[in-house]
């Protein structure tokens, strides 16, 4: 579905959950260049109780209408979150048209049905479909970003996404191949290029987003994560070895079953921590590199906060059979907003609107259905 807590938000597309990057608050405070800038925090004012009622009523209506209402449900939920994301007391506005979204979803469902049936009847057909999908992916990404941008506004000025298929194709296919050939070493570069592509093609009115280079900092981040991963594998290996020596004396055989459980818990916890670390760092680095006219960002997400948030969310959602979902989404968004501050030189009054063309929702809906997002 479309909740921002689940996907990393698109740049500008989901303004209530601004992406991210870590720049320690002390650094910023000590930088003299920032001194004359006005600090405008992103404020998230949604309430979990109110969102729960919206969520559950819209889910019930979706079921009653056999899914047709889902487009309206999506728009209402998005409008709720956009409006509750405020900068300088002004909320964001989501203008998505439910009918356009419904059309996109119908097309997406048909494609998904063809895809799953093709696989059952003929593997060759499935390969053809996968190739077609690969050709379509850049188009889907571009359309999806364009639709979200076109339907997002702040102070009655729309966002606009001007990226082209060709440019997106180059990033994904070329750098994607490079990543595969280099056995993954190129991945941080791919990720950095993809985020740069998404960011610098966004406009707020006529003001184009600018973004600094991310490659070096991304490499540093991924290397660190990779190092921690290797280290924990070594530690785990040694632990298993030591344990099996110790127990073999009395038991003469494999490890008893119970020993596996702490390892499984440690493994899942480690995965979660690494996931949170990458998400926090990549988000912080991205946002702190972006400039929109007189506006810069200070994003200070912390990995351990995010990891704690995720753990509590998962436990709460499982324990309540899913009913805690709205609460989990709201608190995640509130945390993200609370760690994002705008540094504004002058004021926010001087942005000028641009010409915007209507965008169909197909790309966004199909992308949603096949569950890929470019993870900003």
């Amino acid at each position, binding site marked *: 579905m479309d909740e921002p807590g689940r*996907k990393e938000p698109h740049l500008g597309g989901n303004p209530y959950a601004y992406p991210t990057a870590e720049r320690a608050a002390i650094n910023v405070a000590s930088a003299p260049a920032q001194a004359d800038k006005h600090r405008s925090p992103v404020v998230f004012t949604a309430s979990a109780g109110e969102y729960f009622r919206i969520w559950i009523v819209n889910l019930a209506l979706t079921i009653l209408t056999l899914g047709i209402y889902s487009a309206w449900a999506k728009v209402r939920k998005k409008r709720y979150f956009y*409006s509750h994301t405020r900068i300088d007391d002004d909320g964001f*506005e989501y203008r998505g048209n439910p009918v356009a979204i419904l059309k996109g979803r119908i097309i997406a469902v048909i494609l998904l049905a063809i895809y799953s049936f093709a696989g059952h*009847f003929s593997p060759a057909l499935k390969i053809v479909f996968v190739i077609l999908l690969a050709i379509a992916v850049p188009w889907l990404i571009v359309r999806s970003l364009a639709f979200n941008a076109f339907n997002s506004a702040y102070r009655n000025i729309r966002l606009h996404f001007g990226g082209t298929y060709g440019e997106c194709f180059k990033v994904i296919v070329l750098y994607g191949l490079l990543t595969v050939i280099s056995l993954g070493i190129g991945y941080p570069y791919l990720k950095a290029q993809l985020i740069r592509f998404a960011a610098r093609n966004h406009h707020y009115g006529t003001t184009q987003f600018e973004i600094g280079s991310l490659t070096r900092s991304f490499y540093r981040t991924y290397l660190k994560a990779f190092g921690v991963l290797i280290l924990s594998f070594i530690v785990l290996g040694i632990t298993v070895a030591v344990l099996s020596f110790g127990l073999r004396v009395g038991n003469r055989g494999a490890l008893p079953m119970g020993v596996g459980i702490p390892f499984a818990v440690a493994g899942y916890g480690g995965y979660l921590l690494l996931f949170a670390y990458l998400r926090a760092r990549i988000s912080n680095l991205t946002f702190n590199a972006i400039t929109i006219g007189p506006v810069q960002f200070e994003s200070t997400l912390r990995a351990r906060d995010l990891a704690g948030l995720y753990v509590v969310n*998962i436990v709460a959602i499982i324990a309540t059979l899913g009913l805690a*979902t709205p609460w*989990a989404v709201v608190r995640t968004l509130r945390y993200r907003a609370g760690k994002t501050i705008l540094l504004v030189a002058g004021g*926010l009054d*001087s942005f*000028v609107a641009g010409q915007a063309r209507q965008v169909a929702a197909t790309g966004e809906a199909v992308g949603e259905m096949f569950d890929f997002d470019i993870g900003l």
Partner: protein
Amino acid sequence: MTEFSAVYYDGRTSARTPVRVRALDHSLHLVGAELNIEVPFADVRVDARVGDTRRILSLPGGAQLHTDDHAALAALFPRANRLEAWVHELERRWGYALAALMLIAGAAWWSVTLGLPVVAKWVADFVPIDIEARLGAETLYALDKSLCTRSALGADRQQALQKLLGTLTSGLNDRYPYHLEFRACGAVGPNAFALPGGAIVVTDALIKLAQNDPQIAAVLAHEIGHVRRRHGLRLALQSAGAAALIAALAGDAVSITGLAVILPTALLQNGYSREFENEADADAFRRLKAIGLSPKYFAEIMMRLEDYHAKTGGRQDGDTRDTATGKGALDYLSTHPATAERIARALANQ
């Protein structure tokens, strides 16, 4: 006269102009610093209300008014966005939220217990038999790779049992190429599995456990029921459907909650296969009678299986084994209906 405060955005720049809005003679009069505009009501579009979020009024030429004064807007535009205004009324009250919750729970329960099986059966009917047979062949391959090895049964005995299956399936007229696959599957114990597409795997231990051929026939008749009713394929489809449904309901959550989907799906699968066992049993009784055998042989082999498992104390999962105690609420969680119940039914069907 209605009057409210708002902020005016002209749509050309991001500058904000606080204004006082008065409603007079079917028009809105906007008054602010260097601003004095009159807009007829008919040209104003009001957005639908979502929660207590700020309202946006769209004016001609792309300008907007933003205001928190819901009462004033309700008085001025009582008929705007009828449908979504109604949805908003539902969203406002906890009572409706509770009703929605019960509706969702009911719908989920209904689709899991009634809807999904019907849809899965409908979809399964579209799958050609040769594709089903391919699925079965893949399953057999997996069994051979993991649990089973070649049967030690003599060729004569194998042929006799194939003939027995032929007797059982003669006149069924359902185009399935029924045949037995003999295997020695140590860990599985005495057992038989129906694979999609017509193959029936029989373990050597089962042949050894049976005292006579009619008892084997009873087991085969049960497995034929599974094949004919496409239980394997339907079970796979139903489980996939249930997983998709649960994912759709809980899908709003953070992506790493996949675990929350796996657990309920596994529980549901148990409930489904239990129903299929009952169906296959009923088929078996009918089949046995059709070729002149009594369903009491089914009861006999079930008792022998139960004795076997009681003796070995084995906790292996098998197709024809079950706990005699699983009754009541927990019954739905057990793979097979309680054995005692099945034996009683077989005896009642003599």
